[in-house]
């Protein structure tokens, strides 16, 4: 019984001592009165560390990456739009330039065509003129020749007629030889 009481008293004393030391540990000096307790301090630090981790990795991470991705996308599409606009403008100027070249070429072709046409016309005209003048001369020469032959024939005919007429008139007075001479003289005169 005695032993039991002593044991109880001893445990009480130990407990009390432990409590007082624990109390002293909790509230020692200024830090104690302000409630600084290293266990709680670490626990609160751990709590904050969890919040920091969650915010950093699970909230800030995906959102910032999606924000950056979106920014990049917008920048890229803006650049693309600018490039397309530039290309369009380039195309328009190219088109105008090409049109100008084509028009020049067409004008050149038309000019050369009209030039050749004019030339041909002149050539044709001059050829026709020369041809016609040649033909005129030929016909003239032919006519002259025909006239001469006609005249010859007429002369011969006339001579024959004259001879016949003379024969008829002078049938018996003259022989044919003298007669012929006479006629020739008459014609020459």
């Amino acid at each position, binding site marked *: 019984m005695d032993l039991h009481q002593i044991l109880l008293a001893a445990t009480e004393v130990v407990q009390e001592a432990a409590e007082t030391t624990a109390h002293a540990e909790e509230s020692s000096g200024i830090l104690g009165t302000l*409630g600084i307790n290293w266990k*709680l301090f670490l626990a609160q630090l751990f709590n904050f560390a969890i919040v920091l981790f969650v*915010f*950093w990795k*699970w*909230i*800030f991470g*995906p959102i910032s990456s999606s924000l950056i991705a979106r920014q990049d996308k917008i920048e890229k599409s803006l650049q693309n739009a600018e490039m397309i606009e530039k290309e369009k403008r380039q195309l328009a100027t190219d088109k105008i330039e090409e049109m100008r070249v084509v028009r020049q070429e067409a004008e050149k072709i038309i000019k050369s065509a009209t030039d050749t046409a004019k030339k041909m016309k002149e050539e044709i005209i001059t050829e026709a003129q020369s041809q016609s003048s040649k033909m005129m001369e030929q016909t003239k020469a032919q006519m002259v020749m025909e006239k001469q032959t006609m005249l010859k024939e007429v002369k011969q005919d006339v001579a024959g007629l004259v001879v016949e007429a003379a024969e008829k008139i002078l049938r018996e007075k003259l022989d044919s030889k003298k007669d012929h001479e006479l006629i020739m003289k008459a014609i020459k005169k």
Partner: protein
Amino acid sequence: MILALPPLVAEPIFHIGSFPITNAYINSSIAVVFFLIMGLLLRNRKASVPKGLQNFAESVMEFLLGYVDQVTKDRKKSLKFFPIVGALFLFILFSNWISLIPGTGSIGRWLIHEGHLELVPILRPANSDLNLTLAMALFSVIISHVVGIAMIGFFKYANKFIKVWDIIKSFSKGGMSIFVAMIEFVVGIIEVISEIAKIISLSLRLFGNIFAGEVLLTVLAGLIAYGVPLPFMALEILVGLIQATVFSMLVLVYLTIATTPIHEHDSEAHAEATTAH
């Protein structure tokens, strides 16, 4: 019945082993659960055309990033610092605002506290526990040093505080510059002290404001329960936002300062000349 004023120290509600679960810790854990849920919901949302929650989160993010840009003046830096600063801002803001929900500070367990029976509230603003604010402040200041060392190199960064290199260099110039270097060395040591002051001011500012708000609301609710506390609740909404902004903005400024390389006196003129081009 007059409500007991909330004590300076967050009260333990129950223990797990020897670990005390305090009411402020419960509140900060609620915020953690909220962020976990949000994180799990947003984790796999990567649609290029955002909808619903993703749209909301993106708009909040972009709004905050705009402010961060104004301080850093550099989008790359902003994106680097934003996870830290944004997490701080949203965590502080959320835990400040959920502690304005009725029930915080009023629903509790009857426990023996410092010798007598008291109603210990189950919920208490997370930032009215110095453990949390000190943890965040310490983390922020340490991370700003780590980032500074990573960005501008250990020796250059150390030269901001312990300016031994300046003294060595000043001997080659001689005369007045040795004296100037000595003064700057002392200034560097003051900088070290100011780093410690940063931690204390960051943590105590947030703790003090939120704790004072809680005390104010408790006192007012104890005096006249109906109507009168409302404008003060509105004020506390504002205080919660302002304190979250102040804390995160200061951390952002520390990060920005830590990552800007120091201009030496002769290279400063040179840098100005090059930027003038």
